């Protein structure tokens, strides 16, 4: 990688073009990007627009510009500001889906293992682990005071006597602590096959190699059980 005098990486135009072409090749792209006359409805309704330098109107305009350099400008922080609420998609009078384009661009950023994507996803690794290894995205034992100090002192309630409190929930599927519900190993194995086939494990390997190793160890255990 080449760098300019400010230490910013110099990305060749050809690479930017390749990224843009990859986005346009996605089978959803044409449905998400139609025409846009800058009416501003999407941005007017966009929740993160009120807190971030992020505007779905700009996302659409940059895509319509056909300028790979403009699309490239969004590939680092910009795409990660979106809340994925799909307000824009619901209210656009021309049926564009800026939120949908963001999803496509994020997929590219993680598939390609961009440094910005890795950085953004670092604190997300616990969810990725639970999800890919066990088929759940969140578990009761993840709600710990040290992870969520800003959620107040009551958050400690969940970490005390957790197994007992979970046992008291009148649904057998919920009487576990390391998973949101007790997923059968056979079910997990089906999920592994899906992730293998769909290339999900490959993505994890690219964005977080050490997490990938941990996940693979767990999967081996489950598969051999």
């Amino acid at each position, binding site marked *: 990688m080449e760098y300019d005098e400010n230490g910013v990486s110099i990305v060749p135009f050809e690479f930017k073009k390749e990224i843009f072409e990859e986005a346009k090749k996605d089978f959803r792209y044409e449905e998400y990007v139609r025409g846009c006359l800058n009416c501003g409805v999407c941005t007017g309704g966009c929740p993160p627009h009120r807190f971030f330098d992020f505007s779905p109107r700009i996302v659409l305009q940059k895509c319509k510009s056909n300028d790979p350099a403009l699309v490239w400008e969004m590939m680092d922080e910009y795409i990660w500001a979106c809340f994925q609420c799909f307000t824009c998609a619901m209210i656009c009078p021309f049926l564009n889906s800026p939120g949908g384009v963001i999803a496509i661009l994020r997929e590219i950023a993680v598939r390609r293992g961009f440094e910005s994507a890795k950085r953004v996803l670092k604190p997300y690794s616990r969810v990725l682990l639970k999800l890919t290894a066990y088929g759940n995205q969140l578990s009761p034992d993840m709600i710990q005071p040290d992870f969520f100090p800003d959620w107040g002192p009551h958050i400690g309630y969940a970490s005390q*006597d957790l197994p007992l409190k979970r046992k008291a929930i009148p*649904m057998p599927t919920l009487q576990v602590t390391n998973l949101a519900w007790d997923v059968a190993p056979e079910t997990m194995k089906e999920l592994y096959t899906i992730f293998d086939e769909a290339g999900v494990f490959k993505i*994890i390997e690219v964005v977080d190699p050490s997490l990938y190793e941990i996940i693979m160890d767990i999967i081996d255990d489950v598969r051999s059980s």
Partner: protein
Amino acid sequence: MAVEIKNRLDLAAKSSDYMHIAGRKIENIHEELLELEAKGEVKVIHIKDENKPLYAETLFGWKKKIPTNKLWHHKSCGQCGNIPGYPVSVLWFMNKLGLEYIDERNQTSCTAWNYHGSGTSNPVGLAAVAVRNWHRAYELGLFPLFHCATTFGDYKEMRNLLVENKELRDEVKKIMNKIGRELVIPEEIVHYSEWVHVLRFEIAKLKKYDLSDVIVTVHPACHCYKMIPEDCIYDKEIYAGKRTAVSTGIALALGAKVADYSTWYDCCGFGFRHILTEREASRSFVMDRKIRPMVREANSDVCITQDTGCTTTLDKNQWIGKAMGYTEQVPVMSDVMFAALACGADVFKIVQLQWHTTDWRPLCEKIGIDWKKSEEEYKAYLEELRAGGKTVNLYEYPS
């Protein structure tokens, strides 16, 4: 203040003679799905008479069939992990109403929270997970009921993508072959809040407390009504048919006051990624855009939600607000939990409000619920369990 509140209270129950239009040039996915079935391209999980369906009107005036019986619970990670009273309240009502269902271990997450947060999946992965879970309901002869709004939104989207793209169908079929399953698609994608909505008058018959002094504000979930909006319930008698009717419908049916507020359309600030990795954004959003308007404009006693992430985000982020001078607080719970409270479900054993952060006790007191007694009983119950006692379950695995 009084005048303002009155005006905001009038809106939810406003009715109109409006006509829906299906002007938007969109494909009718339901018809296309049935065509694919006729061609033998896919199998469809139909809503049968034994599912005791009820009908509701959607945004474009299409009739949506909502099955009420013989259901397969597609649970939500965040609810089961963090808000256990949410699914428990659903099961509690199903038992009360004598409806059949299965809740089992053979279900995966929809994986869509992760996808919308991190981008670490793709349409093939998401669609295959969806079909895998749909097929599990299918082989049991049940209809799947989705507890989470993100599951609901994602599965609606996956259904549409599968119906419209043969390549995607073929890829998913290939994967289903490998795990011994088939490509099946439900006739309708149904969210639990829709189930609550169509049964709201039945549920209201079970009411134990007078709620006429309780002011409710509703936070509608983006992934319910903003993703594939044509599949969402609207009702001429609720918000004059201009806003999605679920959750508001049950609150009104229970006799509570529903108040409007200026940021009704705003999301909760969850952001999928932000709730974990950019928490200050979620926090600010919660206080500035939701809780403060709900309290200041509507004098709200309780915020009613219809989704996992919203409930968590809105509940957990109020405490830290105090550090920034945000003194407004309002308890947060889902529509079905609020209904369960109103119908006499135990605060601790069923509605499980003990896991919630924002103080819900004043609400219980306003309704007339003796939460202290409930707490004592719960503590005693925990001691019984600690001593080796057996859980009194709402449901047991089929033997």
